[in-house]
């Protein structure tokens, strides 16, 4: 069932390409602004880069989550699964997976220009970097899908998603930035297991909570 629900999101996105394209271009534009704004101190940019990277990821995630859930509001498409004999927790998991796929795809697209524009070195372990990106994105998505769910019927949804997501996801921003910073300084993975644990537990806590409460919050 989860597979069909995710496949539906992927099919729609494959045709329109609007979510990933808008996230990628938006990410690129913020990167450009950062590159220009931090030209005053090119030497310091390496210190700021991890934080900037996660700011870009959080901003683009908001855009992606908003679009991904708007999909369900067009022509009340959500009726198809709200009225169906499918547990809404399953739908939540499917949404988490779709959002994760879209956000990771857009990250892969804008991370190369991000490194090039900000003149960042790339002499670190790519596997560790992938692990941090996966855990960080997973944590953002788990709480992000829940917040998108509770704001689905809101008049000010576009505004409410970032207002609620940014403070709630602040532990993710701190932990992911810390990990990325240590990684850029070539410090091996074992030294920041604590931060990976924060990201992991964030994902587990909000993933479980979302799974449990989703059938209380989605309805017309």
């Amino acid at each position, binding site marked *: 069932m989860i597979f069909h629900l995710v496949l539906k999101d992927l099919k729609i996105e494959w045709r329109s390409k609007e979510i990933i394209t808008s996230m990628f271009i938006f990410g690129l534009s913020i990167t450009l602004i950062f590159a220009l704004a931090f030209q005053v101190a090119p030497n310091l940019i390496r210190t700021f880069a991890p934080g900037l990277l996660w700011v870009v990821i959080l901003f683009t995630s908001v855009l992606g989550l908003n679009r991904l859930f708007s999909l369900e509001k067009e022509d009340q498409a959500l009726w198809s699964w709200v009225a169906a004999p499918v547990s809404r927790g399953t739908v939540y998991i499917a949404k988490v997976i779709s959002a994760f796929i879209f956000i990771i795809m857009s990250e892969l697209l804008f991370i190369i220009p991000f490194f090039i524009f900000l003149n960042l070195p790339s002499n670190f372990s790519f596997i560790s970097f992938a692990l941090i990106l996966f855990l960080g994105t997973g944590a953002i998505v788990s709480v992000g899908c829940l917040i998108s769910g509770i704001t689905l019927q809101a008049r000010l949804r576009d505004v409410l998603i970032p207002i609620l997501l940014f403070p709630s996801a602040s532990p993710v921003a701190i932990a992911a930035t810390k990990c990325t910073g240590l990684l850029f300084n070539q410090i091996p993975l074992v030294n920041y297991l604590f931060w990976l644990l924060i990201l992991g537990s964030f994902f587990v806590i909000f993933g479980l909570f979302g799974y449990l409460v989703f059938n209380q919050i989605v*309805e017309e």
Partner: protein
Amino acid sequence: MNLDINNLSKSFYHVPVFQSFSISIKSGERVGLFGPNGSGKTTLLKMISGIMSVDKGEILIGNILQDSENIKTRKSIYYLGHSLGLYPGLTGNENISFISKLYGKSELLVLDVLKKVGLGKLENKLVKFYSQGMLQRLKLATAIILNPEIILLDEPLNGLDNEGLDLFKKVYTEWEENSKTIFVVSHDQEWLKNFTSRTIELT
């Protein structure tokens, strides 16, 4: 399958739409529902289908409580609503296949059903390019393929041309023959009188 609503209450922005509303519909009965705008006709159908939650009271479907936790009851109902309730970014065929998977129905019949409602040639066209009449036919196709015991129809005649009306009558007669429980909302009281076993007015 019989449908019982006991002491149902629902309000919007603290304005009650239903207060202790009760109705009982026997299996195989066809009930028409009419009333002025804002009397809660659509809301009632949405609550029965599980799309909307109830504030108080209970809805029993075949003696099982309709509840967001309980997914079994939703299998025997389909709500054919005002809005599409399907994805405009998917083709007709993909939409019907998707929803039949959600209900655990076989997809083998999808093309046959689409041909039956006259959408055979349009199966691979995106739903966002469908006209109003085609969308109505698509919803009808969904109702046919899901083959639920209880069918909730919200203004089913809207946007249908003469050919579409004939098609709808044919499908409706089939449901009647298979003794489905049908709940229809319509402004056309004449139509309701001819095609339902009893009518209820909401005020």
